[in-house]
């Protein structure tokens, strides 16, 4: 792909600790970011940005486990707490203070639900983190791909937006691109769910007129956007499936905001 030799690094907490170092941030990758083929590309894009701006970060690698979010929302509190306690033991063992994650579900759980079980960290969603980098001028989108003339619409993730009131950060990140940002009819506090939250992703939807992601993609398409930007692994899958359902996969693409920034930077 690239003509230059790439040299991106992904240090783990275990490596760092072994060499007596402490990272500025822990990047919590999440299950989708680790295993889902499409979302792995988002993980990679974000890691490249982290490398590019020279932030000292680490991941847990094989020591990371599901936060337990889908189990908890589905009603399995036992399983959730087993996961949470195990993760908290690992995180506290490494004396982790600051966590960045690209998954709003991990973000919500780590930020709001772990403290009561003994896990207290500063938790930041990657949209907020990228917004900070852009504001500080550490990320400038001009070396890579141009977005001139492209229309981007942003789909709010429920667990980022309504659940945690992060509405502007992802929009600010997208504003750094020289694209046209168009809003859908239902946005921010009014946003329409992608249909995956609360464990829905892991089962067939109940019978109805149509699937939620199809409804949402219809709304996204009606803005005339050629790019649907998301900030959540589940939204990513649901929007991509919806676009396929509408046979628009050749003209409309779904990207995570960090992928767009990485493209804009030529990473």
């Amino acid at each position, binding site marked *: 792909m690239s003509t230059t030799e790439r040299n991106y690094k992904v240090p783990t907490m275990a490596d760092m600790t072994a060499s007596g170092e402490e990272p500025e941030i822990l990047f919590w990758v999440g299950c989708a970011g680790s*295993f889902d083929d499409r979302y792995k590309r988002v993980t990679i894009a974000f890691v490249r940005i982290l490398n590019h701006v020279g932030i000292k970060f680490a991941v847990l690698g094989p020591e990371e486990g*599901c936060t337990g979010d889908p*189990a908890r929302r*589905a009603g399995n509190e036992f399983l959730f*707490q087993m996961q949470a306690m195990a993760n908290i033991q690992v995180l506290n063992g490494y004396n982790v203070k600051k966590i960045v994650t690209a998954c709003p579900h991990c973000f919500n759980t780590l930020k709001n639900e772990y403290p009561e079980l003994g896990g207290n960290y500063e938790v930041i969603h990657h949209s907020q983190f990228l917004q900070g980098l852009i504001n500080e001028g550490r990320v400038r989108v001009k070396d890579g791909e141009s977005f001139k003339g492209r229309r981007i619409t942003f789909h709010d993730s*429920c667990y980022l937006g309504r*659940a*945690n009131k992060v509405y502007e950060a992802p929009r600010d990140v997208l504003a750094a691109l020289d694209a046209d940002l168009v809003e859908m009819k239902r946005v921010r506090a009014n946003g329409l769910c992608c*249909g995956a939250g609360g464990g829905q992703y892991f089962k067939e939807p109940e019978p*109805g007129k149509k699937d939620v992601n199809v409804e949402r993609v219809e709304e996204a398409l009606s803005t005339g956007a050629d790019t649907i930007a998301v900030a959540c692994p589940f939204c990513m899958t649901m929007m991509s499936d919806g676009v396929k359902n509408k046979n628009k996969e050749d003209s409309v693409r779904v990207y995570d905001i960090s992928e767009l920034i990485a493209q804009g930077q030529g990473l």
Partner: protein
Amino acid sequence: MEIFQQVLFVAALAAVAWYITQRVRLISRAINLGRPENRFDHADERLKTMLLVAFGQKKMFTNPLVGVMHFVIYAGFIIINLEILEIILDGVLGTHRLFAPYITPVYPVLIDIFEVLAFGVLVVCVVFLCRRFVAKVARFQPERHREMARWPQVDAAIILTAEILLMIAFLTWNASDSVLRDRGIGHYGELKGIVPDFIISQYLKPLFTNFSDTALMAYERIAWWFHILGILAFAIYVTYSKHLHIALGFPNVYFSDLQPKGEMQNMPEITKEVQLALGLPVTTEADGSQPNDNGQQPAEIGRFGAKDVQDLKWINLMNAYSCTECGRCTAACPANITGKKLSPRKIMMDTRDRMEEIQRGWKANGNDYRDDKSLLNDYITAEELNACTTCQACVMACPVNINPLDIILQLRRYRVMEESEAPASWNAMFSNIENNMAPWKFSPSDRFNWADQVND
């Protein structure tokens, strides 16, 4: 004659007061079925929320036109209470327009304000009837929302019609009174020259000019009695209706979740079990308190999750009594929008219906009566519960800060933990998390494989 009317009036007042007290007792007893939960913290923030959301009707104004219309009814309700105070005192004391001589210059201004509001309420009620039954605003239609069939529609029609009739009675009462005053009859005439015609009812006077004095006096009395008895009857009716929100909306918002957050409430009784299972020091007792070794019995563990209203928290039950059945939650619900059976409004209405069923049981069989029904299954089905994406749209949309999602999640907990009744694919997800530390069937040792591709 006059004294007879006074006695009758006081008796009516007393009967209504007694009856409403009974209703309040019954309803608070039903709300107290719920589990305890501290909602008395952060008084400042709660007060602020109540001022904004309940008094200020902040969330109603997301649709400005409906916001303004609802505000007219709301202001009418609160301000007209001043007028009702005079009416009640007149009724008890056998006086006529008691306040007029004491606050002469302000009096007509006040009544003019009441009349404008009454007229506003009347117009808005007509518009609301039309929205519901002629223009057929989607979220009110029983064809699309089965929880709206029958009683909720009848209830809405009764309330709106009653308000219209009450306002007509008030305005025509003022008009007939003005004509009697002009004619200088009896105690009506005593206010001639002191009380002028009023801003709206002056235009209704021509309706009464052909009436004989006796007929006019009869109409004045009938309208007066109709108006005040109507209001008293309305006060009782409200306790059976979704219009209970005019009273409970305020405390409901005061005690609401302070901000919609994705956080699900922790279950300390499970924390203890998990800590024991993992060999960790126990940091919480089942009731959430700190552990102690003084040999005290730990708090009794109830059910995991909720099967019936007794397992919910009191605030969930107050929520149910405060629901206005407006359906803003349901109109925002992605599951409902796409035709699934789930409707957050129905969740709230079912919860209230279940409490009312329990109350009927108490009445018929004594206060310790328990039937063998439950909110789960008899009212709310698994299909509805399983469809929720926990997106919080319903929580955000509700104008009185009700949280239907909280109930849904507690019922899900019961189904999964007590009945092991999760959909098969959820059980697969659970066992994947348990065995592979991820909801999918991948080996945990492959978790870091993505890193091999960063330099591709």
